[in-house]
């Protein structure tokens, strides 16, 4: 297989124009993904990469939603299963199961963590005025994790707060 030939086929902005594809974007971009049947989104600028699921190395005595650590090009990256963390759906590991690796730069340091989700779906362009606050009527996902809701066609997408997701809770090391 000739990779170079394939690479040339990939459209580059301003070089080819492909019908039906709109390169002009406005507002912020969000990557949406599925947890069970629900749509969630994170700021696309935080996304480091999307990987297929591989069995991580377990961390002793870690909470069940922390699946372990993997080697991402020499960096040790912990893997959090969002379905377990938020108690949404079943945590099954299939071929379509993916890991979204997010890097968040806080004031003092940057942290890279992988999150297991059921599937990655789309990239949304969202104007900030379209983000609406989430009503506080419970749900499994704590309010601190939610930045707001957006309507995408007939579905509602929850925008997650990456800074909060990245916080590693100090869990009891052995129970």
């Amino acid at each position, binding site marked *: 297989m000739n990779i170079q030939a394939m690479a040339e086929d990939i459209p580059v902005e301003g070089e080819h124009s492909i019908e039906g594809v709109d390169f002009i974007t406005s507002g912020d971009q969000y990557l949406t993904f599925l947890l069970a049947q629900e749509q969630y989104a994170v700021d696309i600028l935080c996304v480091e990469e999307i990987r297929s699921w591989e069995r*991580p*190395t*377990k*961390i*002793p*005595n*870690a909470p069940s939603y922390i699946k*372990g*650590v*993997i*080697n991402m090009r*020499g*960096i*040790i*990256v*912990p893997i959090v299963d969002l379905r377990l963390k938020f108690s949404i759906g079943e945590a099954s590991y299939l071929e379509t199961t993916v890991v979204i690796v997010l890097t968040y730069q806080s*004031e*003092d*340091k940057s*942290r*890279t*963590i992988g999150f297991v989700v059921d599937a990655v779906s789309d990239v949304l362009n969202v104007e900030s005025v379209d983000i609406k606050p989430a009503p506080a009527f419970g749900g499994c996902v704590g309010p601190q994790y939610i930045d707001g809701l957006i309507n995408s066609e007939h579905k509602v997408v929850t925008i997650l707060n990456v800074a909060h997701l990245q916080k*590693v809770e*100090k869990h009891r*090391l*052995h129970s």
Partner: protein
Amino acid sequence: MSVDLSQFIPSFLEESFEGLELMETGLLNLQPGDNETIHSIFRAAHSIKGGAGTFGFENVTEFTHLVETLLDEMRDGRRDITNKDTEILLESVDCMRLLIEAARDDVDYDQAKVAQISALLSETLGDEQSSSNEGEASSNIDKPKGSGYHIKFVPEHSLAKTGNDPLFLFSALAELGELTIFANTQELPALMDIDAQELYLSWQLTLHTEVEEAEIIEIFEWVEDECLLELTAINDNSADSGTDKAQATDEVEQASQQPDTQQTAATEAVVTEQVVSKQPEQVIDEDNSKVAKTKAKAEVGSIRVGVDKVDSLINLVGELVITQSMLSELGTDFEMDKVERLTSGLEQLLQNTKELQESVMRIRMLPISFAFNRFPRLVHDLAIKTGKAMELVIKGEQTELDKTVMEQIGDPLVHLVRNAADHGIESNEIRLANGKPEKGTISLDAYHQGGNIVIEINDDGAGINRAVVFDKAVEKGLIDAGATLTDSQVYDLLFEPGFSTAAEVTDISGRGVGMDVVKRNIQALGGRIQVESSLGKGSTFKVNLPLTLAILDGQLVKVGSETYIIPLISIVESLQIDNKLINRVSGDMVLYRLRNDNVPVLPIYQLFDLATECTEIHNALLVVVEADGQKVGLMVDDLLAQQQVVIKSLKDNYQQVAGISGATILGDGSVAMILDIPGMIHMALEKAQQAQLVKNNGNTNATAEVCL
């Protein structure tokens, strides 16, 4: 052109600290009449002063100026080099370090100390002044009494480009006396032709002062090569001085106007830039809290790397690129008959990577002299404090050591050296009475041995009295009175926490102030410490350290489906379990009889909550490890390979995990955890205590029920 001065502050600080070290070393070695050393000390102080002035660290400038004046007098031979002055200068170096550190971290400093030392300095200078005035009074007679100088200062056009600013020079001159400035604007080209970075002015200055010519020339020292400087003394002629004064007032007026309008053409650029560059800095200050700022600064370190190391790195990268292109060429149309070339190419790649790894590691290696540098001063101070004559001999200071290890070994070494000086070396009288040279010798020696670095701290003092240590240990209940111990076992008792308080130890001739801490620090670095001593002749403390903290020799073990790495240094032995030697005692605690020892067995799968088929002890293997003097047997399913692993932190993206010191990446790309043996032992103890607590609570509840 915009120059952000703040970007140079880190290098100024680095150079200043180097300068301070240089001054300290110089002062310690200073002998009367040693002009070369005085010059180098003076130069160091002068650069610090200059730099501090540029960056606006006024405290530093002011203080350093005093130091410099004192040094200047020594340099010119106007002052004899006495021990007293050297001591004051040494203290001043401490003060300067304090001030610069305070400036760096933007915190307050110990003002009382600085004030005290600067008072001392001024006092010393004052003494000198009066005596020198007396001394020079005679010589002044034949000289015309210099009441001032005419200075003609014609700088080259490029002066401003080299970072010099005539304004600074003039304000320095103004400090010496009454200064009048006349700017000569003849050479100023038409406005169109002006290059904003060139300096077109020259100046005629008149300085009314009592100071000597040398002091004025010193101000111009930095620009000497780039200007024409003429100094003529004003003859103290009343008529002349009258006209001078009249002229001077004229000049003042002129000067105050002309520089304002024209001189600014040349210097304004520089001045405004400074103002501009300072503003963003202040904004940042307000945004970030000071704490965060200092923290960030403390964390970012830099190292100086020899060019040879960088060159070899570049060479290796070159080779790697060649190998890579060779392999990719091979890959474009690969056929089976080229497989041999492929294997040799891969071998070459392996070689390149290995060398590259070693080279990169070497960049972190610094000569141990960085850690040894502070000891001459320490020993010097201790000698004064204890009143014992002693000298320090340093050997092998070029031996290289990883930067992180170096940073952490400093304190334990200070402790050992202090102990050697405090308890090891006897007082002068006792030494003479024992037929030893009056001056005690402490030697520091560093050398490589295998993959380790060995640091020896040796003194020719009294040595350790084995019997006294032994008795003390018995008294403390650490050993039985009837126990037979080897010498090294007895010396190891010194590192017991019970031996650590100073009052108890100074009674005996041995040592042991906080020795348990020293040992723990060294062990935390993966090293060990040994003691050799012979009574009456001295003792040697041998510190054995790994060269780097980034790589570790590990034993791979299997527990369930997981692979763990046990640091080789903590493994005592690995063995197949003999059923007969397993004992269950005092309520299901499993012990394994290892010759005379009973070693508690820790099943890793239980501690880490893992699923494994190997839950029965007789199916498993036992790896006996030791930490903090406690031996435990780790139960593992299988022993795998031994290999060097690169340690990666779990804290970067996650957090510290109990029982785990880090992670590494194995040959197949998977991650394996490195076991933290002391941490695991601690965990197991805690777990046992908790279990006990739960049990006891259960019992009390039960009895309560019965009572009811």
